[in-house]
């Protein structure tokens, strides 16, 4: 018999895990935590930017997932389902934790003259940012810049630009108005541009 291709094997393994999950089999669930926990931890770290909170959120997410296993749709992917639960657990954690002091962003936001023109000329980047991030150190700098954004901006940026949720869904998940989502998204992108700009000029 021909050996299964790795992609087929992974899909079969995921189906196997999904079956175990629906049946409430603790051994299957432990395999699920091992298989997807790292990815979920990366997601909650990104949103919460705090190791302890990120670990708590992953734990909350797995407990929610285990309790809701009966609602898992047999046609869905375990990874997608868990990813969504992890994002929601991180957002919940973010809403309940004490607000942290946020660093002022004025230095990284664009400034304008009284007449409304850009106050200083921009230095063109050496190469497009999405190409520059192919280098590990530049990618790391961009990830650090995202982590540096204040919670209120980072979360909206992650929901909209990274998770691909729309304005309405982001507003509902965060308990803010769609208009606030739009304003925060714009401010987050402006701030991120300012934070990564020095790395784009040193790219070569």
């Amino acid at each position: 018999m021909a050996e299964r291709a790795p992609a087929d094997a992974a899909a079969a393994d995921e189906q196997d895990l999904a079956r175990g999950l629906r049946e409430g089999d603790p051994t299957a669930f432990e395999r699920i935590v091992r298989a997807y926990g790292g990815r979920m931890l990366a997601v909650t770290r990104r949103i919460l930017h705090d190791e302890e909170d990120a670990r708590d959120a992953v734990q909350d997410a797995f407990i929610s997932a285990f309790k809701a296993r009966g609602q898992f749709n047999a046609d869905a992917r375990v990874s997608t389902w868990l990813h969504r639960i992890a994002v929601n657990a991180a957002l919940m954690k973010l809403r309940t934790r004490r607000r942290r002091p946020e660093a002022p962003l004025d230095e990284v936001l664009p400034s304008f003259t009284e007449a409304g023109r850009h106050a200083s000329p921009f230095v063109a980047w050496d190469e497009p940012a999405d190409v520059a991030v192919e280098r590990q150190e530049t990618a790391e700098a961009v990830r650090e810049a995202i982590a540096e954004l204040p919670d209120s901006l980072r979360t909206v940026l992650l929901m909209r630009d990274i998770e691909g949720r729309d304005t309405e869904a982001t507003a509902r998940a965060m308990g803010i108005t769609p208009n606030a989502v739009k304003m925060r998204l714009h401010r987050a992108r402006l701030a991120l541009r300012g934070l990564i700009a020095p790395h784009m000029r040193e790219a070569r």
Partner: protein
Amino acid sequence: MTCREATEFLTDYLARDLPAAVLREFEAHLARCPECRTFLSQYDQTIRAGRRVCAEGHDDVLTDFPEDLLTAIMAAIKASP
């Protein structure tokens, strides 16, 4: 339209959400303002770069899952009703 105003429209412009009249003014401003053209390009690249570095396989997702967290999760699940 000033550069300050044009900057406020960037998100709606990229989402193709600008009303026709504003879009015309925005594009007329871009055509005569090299600063805003550079800024728009960098703003757009920033969004793409953020997506890329957070995409699966381009992230710190391959780190081993902490064994103590696994133990805590399994204990919590076994204790849950």
